[in-house]
Every structure is written in structure tokens, then in C-alpha cells.
């Protein structure tokens, strides 16, 4: 029973079940072709990269008891800034310039995160409202940057970020995994993770214990902004254009869902990086599976909704107790 009680048991079980479904329904699950891996599994990994990045930042924010609704807008702004600058390049294929521009876009995103963090930590606004401001205004800003147009770019180094392969694996997934590794080392091999959970548990108690709670709070929003910016670059590189309306639309909801599926409590004070990654891949797998098992496109969202409802209920300890507790009680009663 200990495995079943692990909070990652149900998400992983559903993920494995979905992958097994994919194994039978997709033409090629995983093969080696043209020198790199190819197939449904690789598509899932590649497609889940932006969501993993956004959900990773979201996990840190939620672990301090906050929430970041602005990630979708930040994605749109980051893609818009990058495409605008790349379009003005003399040679769009100059790798150095493209890398510099991507750095600029991520810096802009981090600055937007700094704005969120300052509102939460310094002004003392509730996180859900503080980030709502940028969520509403940010998409307007992105539209101003692109002047309401969709900016197309023809830059092969930029496209590589989303569609390229390195060591037979998709570059986008490798970027996401590098970010996950970085955060894992920072939070689990240093005291940072403990500090985050401490701030999430009680900011004032943490401050009295000598932790700079405000600095940590600002930092998580900056990291969340930067990761959202990186996700925005992958999104826009994938479609080779900046679409300020569709980019990152509703991704904050998927990201929060991924975090919750991964067992991170929304009230803060506890987080699981591995759980978030499982949650993000699960959501992406679900989207791929719905198509591959031939659910008609009009029922896609309904199917997703049913799985989400089941997941949310299975996450609720009270629900498990009320439904499954009854069976347990009966077996324990001596005959």
C-alpha cells in the first residue's frame, strides 16, 4: 500500500496508461530516423517543453504561497520582442546575434517577473491580483510591440530552439530538462528549497527566523518570468513567428494544473519538482492521446475535462477518504 499512498502514484499511473494507449494507436512510438529519435513519444517530449518550463517557474511561485497568472502574457511579450529584433537583423541566420536577442527577450521577461515580485513582496498585494494586472495588460503590450500583426521570421538558428535535435533528442526538451536540473540542484542540494518552503509556510515566521522572505519572494517571480520568457521563445520559434494573441493563451491554467497534479499544495509550503514535470508531461500526453485514439476534434476538450475532474478528485484526500474509506472500514471490522 505504500506505493499507492505516494502522492505521485496516481499521476504516474495515468501517464503510463496513456503512454501504453499511444504505444498501440500511433504508427511509430519511437524509432531512429535521419540520425535522431522520432515518433509519438518524442513528439510528446518536444511538445511538453514550454509547459514544463512554465510549470517549473509556477512550482517555485506556488511553493511560497503565491501564484503567477501572467505567464501566458509574458510568453507573448518574449516571443514578440525576439521576433521583432530578429526581423531587423541584416542576417537572420547569424547565430551570435540570435542568441543575444534571445538573451534580451529573457531579460525583458525577468524584468516583468521583477515587477510582479515587487508588487507581491514590497507593496504587499495578493499574488493572484498582482499578477492579474500583468496578465490583462501584458497581452495588450505584446500587441503593441508587434503592432497587432503576426511577425514572421526566417532564422534557422532560432527555429533550432524548437525543432532542432541534439544527441538524437529534441533541443526544446533538452532546454527544459537543463532548467529542471538547475532548479533541482539549487533547491535540493542547497538550503534554497528549505527557505522556499519556509516562506510558503509562514512569511513572517521565516522573517523572524532570519530569512529574507521578501528577497526570496521577489526572486521566485523573477525566475517564473524568465522561464515563461524562455517558453515563449520555444513557442514562437516553433511557429517561426510571433502571435501575440495565441501565444501562451490559457497556459497559466495548464501550468497550475500540472503543479497541482504533481502534488504541490496551492497554499504553499511544500513542492515537488519531479511531480510538476510528471504533471506537465501528463497534460501534453493527454492532448496527444486524444488525437491519436481518434476522439473527434470536437470532443477533445470534453475528454480532457473528464480526466482533469478525475485527477482533481483523486488528489483530494477528503474525497478518497469519503469514497474509498468506506470499503476499508468494512474489511477492518472483525466478522
Amino acid at each position, binding site marked *: 500500500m505504500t506505493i499507492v499512498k505516494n502522492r505521485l502514484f496516481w499521476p504516474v499511473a495515468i501517464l503510463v496508461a496513456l503512454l501504453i494507449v499511444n504505444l498501440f494507436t500511433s504508427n511509430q512510438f519511437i524509432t531512429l530516423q535521419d540520425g535522431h529519435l522520432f515518433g509519438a513519444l518524442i513528439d510528446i517530449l518536444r511538445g511538453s517543453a514550454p509547459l514544463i518550463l512554465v510549470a517549473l517557474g509556477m512550482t517555485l511561485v506556488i511553493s511560497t504561497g503565491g*501564484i503567477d497568472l501572467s505567464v501566458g502574457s509574458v510568453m507573448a511579450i518574449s516571443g514578440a520582442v525576439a521576433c521583432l529584433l530578429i526581423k531587423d537583423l541584416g542576417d537572420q541566420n547569424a547565430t551570435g546575434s540570435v542568441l543575444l536577442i534571445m538573451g534580451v527577450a529573457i531579460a525583458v521577461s525577468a524584468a516583468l517577473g521583477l515587477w510582479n515580485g515587487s508588487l507581491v513582496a514590497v*507593496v*504587499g*498585494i*495578493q499574488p*493572484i*491580483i*498582482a499578477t*492579474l*494586472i*500583468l*496578465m*490583462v*495588460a*501584458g*497581452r*495588450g*503590450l505584446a*500587441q*503593441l510591440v508587434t*503592432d*497587432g500583426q503576426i511577425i514572421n521570421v526566417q532564422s534557422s538558428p532560432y527555429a533550432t530552439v524548437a525543432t532542432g535535435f541534439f544527441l538524437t533528442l529534441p533541443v526544446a526538451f533538452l532546454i527544459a530538462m537543463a532548467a529542471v536540473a538547475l532548479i533541482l540542484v539549487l533547491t535540493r542540494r542547497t538550503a534554497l528549497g528549505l527557505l522556499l518552503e519556509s516562506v510558503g509556510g509562514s512569511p513572517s515566521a521565516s522573517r523572524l527566523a532570519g530569512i529574507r522572505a521578501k528577497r526570496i519572494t521577489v526572486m521566485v517571480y523573477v525566475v517564473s518570468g524568465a522561464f515563461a520568457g524562455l517558453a515563449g521563445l520555444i513557442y514562437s520559434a516553433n511557429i517561426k513567428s510571433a502571435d501575440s494573441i495565441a501565444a501562451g493563451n490559457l497556459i497559466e*491554467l495548464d501550468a*497550475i*494544473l500540472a503543479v*497541482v497534479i504533481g502534488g504541490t499544495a*496551492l497554499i504553499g509550503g511544500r513542492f515537488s519538482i519531479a511531480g510538476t514535470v510528471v504533471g506537465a508531461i501528463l497534460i501534453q500526453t493527454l492532448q496527444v492521446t486524444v488525437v491519436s485514439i481518434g476522439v473527434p*476534434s*470536437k*470532443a*477533445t*476538450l*470534453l*475528454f*480532457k*475535462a*473528464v480526466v*482533469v*475532474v478525475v485527477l*482533481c*478528485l483523486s*488528489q*483530494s*484526500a*477528503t*474525497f478518497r477518504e*469519503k469514497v474509498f474509506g468506506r470499503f476499508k472500514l468494512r474489511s477492518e471490522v472483525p466478522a
Partner: protein
Amino acid sequence: MTVMSPQPVTTDPAINPRRRVYRPNTKYIPILATLALLLVMYLGGLVNYENFDQPSVVVNLFRDNAVLLAVAVGMTFVILTGGIDLSVGAVISLTTTLTATLLQGGWPPLLVLPLVLILGALLGAGMGAVIHYFRVEPFIATLAGLFLARGLALFINQESIPIRDELWTTLSDMRIPLGETTKTTLTAIVALVAVLIAAAVLAWTRFGRNVYAIGGSADSALLMGLPVARTRIAVYTISGFCAALGGVLYTINSTSGHALQGTGTELDAIASCVIGGVLLTGGAGYVFGSLLGVMVFGLITTIINFQGDLNAAWTRIVVGVLLFGFIVLQRLVTRRTR
């Protein structure tokens, strides 16, 4: 034995002699600020644009924002209890799609109308029950409700469906005269009636007091013996009903139904409530505040239309800036009272 002092230890701030300037009760400051902003925006419009003084400018605010107003009324109840309802936009889309489909299928309109309203209320009640009994976060439970309602809507029909029903077209063409030259639509009146009923319920009924009490502190409300479960499920039911009402108003306004209608309405409704001074932590705010918030929202759009050469993106940016201003104001007000 000590002699008790007959004087009260604390002094009432109302009779503080050093206070000469009129200061409104702090709980009214956000709503007064919104009202002031609304007046300034309107005066600004009067000065800068021709024809802004026509009464139709004000009357059309209600006509164009009837759907948002209905939704914001329900959202106010939920936010007052400290919750949030992300599903309202999806409930609108489900209602419009279902109404249009049933009417196209030849169902009697007088059956369709109560049916879709009850469906919205039931969806809300279901989410409320999940939130209360299974202790799922309101954010997550209503997010699942959003997916479910929009999923159902898309499943029914992905296209825009026209409504040719006689009752609907009659209601759509109905104009109610206000004074000599101005007329308004039925939808605006319905939305305003919803505001009045909601305001009366919150101000004068036991249920209304329970809503504020739960928003102040759910634990204390429970210890006081207030019916927390019933009230909490009721506010989500009201929100679902109001969202369905918004959907019906939309079908009357546009005589069509579309599954993608109402995307993002939940955020507009939350923003309207915040601009109107409803505290997102719960326990403080008024439906009239949300009404003013919706009016501010509508007036921004109107001014941008009058200006003509402004990008529509500015609407979002201005709303964002206003949100920022009002949240900081609320923060200052609540900090002072503490």
C-alpha cells in the same frame, strides 16, 4: 476592592474634536474612488469628443455590457465569500450553444429558457459541493468546471448557430423607451434588475450576512453556527445561474449561439469586481461597486471607440493600469484600518 472608572476607556473616533474635515467611512473609499474615476472619465469624454453628451452614450453602456454585468453580479457573491469562479465564461458559451441548438431543434422556447438557466445553476452547485465537501481549491475546481462546460459546448457544436425563434427575435428587437429620444434593450433592464435583486439580498437578508461572514472568516462563521456548507454551495449556484443568464442575454442580443463566446469573460468579471472595490480576500464589497466596475470597463471601450485612431490593445493596457491603481488604493485603505 477597586473602583471602576465610569468613563469608557476607548474614545470614539467619530467625536474626536481634532477631526474637522469630512472623512467618509473607510469601507466606502474604494467605491467612492471608482465613482469619482467614472465621473472624471465621463467629463473627459464630454470635453474631448463631440456627441459624447448624448444620453445614448450612457444608456448604451448598459446595453453593450449587459452580459458582463450579469456575470459580475454572480462573481461578486463568490468573491465576497473569498472564493473565485473561473467557469463563468465557459458557462456562457455552453448556455448560448445549448439554447441555439435546442431552439433550432424546435423545442418550445418557454421550456428552453428555464432549462438552460437551471443547468447553469446546477453546474455551479456541483462545483460548490466539490469545493466544500472535498476541500478542492475553488481555483482548481472551477478550472475543471471551465474545461467541462467549454468541452460540452464544443461537443454540441463548434460552429456559430443562428436563432430564428420568434420569441427570441421579438425580445431582441424589443426597445424600451426612456424619455423622448433614448431607448434601451430588454437585456440591459434584465441585467440591472439582477443588480438590484443581488444588492437587496446582500444587504437585507440573513443569507447576505452569512456571505459576508464566511468571507470574513469561514472558521469563525462555522463556530458561530452559520450554515457554511449551504451558503458556500449557494454562492456558486448563484454564480452559475448568473453566468447562464448572461449567456441567455447574449443569445437575445445577437440571436445566435457560439461555443467560443465568453472566452476570458471570467477575467473581465473579476477585474470589474476589483475595480469596483470588492476585496478579493472576501468579506468586503458591494454589488453596486461591481456595477461601477463594469461601467468603467464599458466607458474605456467607448472612449477608445470615440478616439478612433487608438489600437484596441490599449483597452487591455488601460484596464491593467486601472487595476493596478485600485489595488494599491485598496491596499492603502485596508492597511490604515488595521
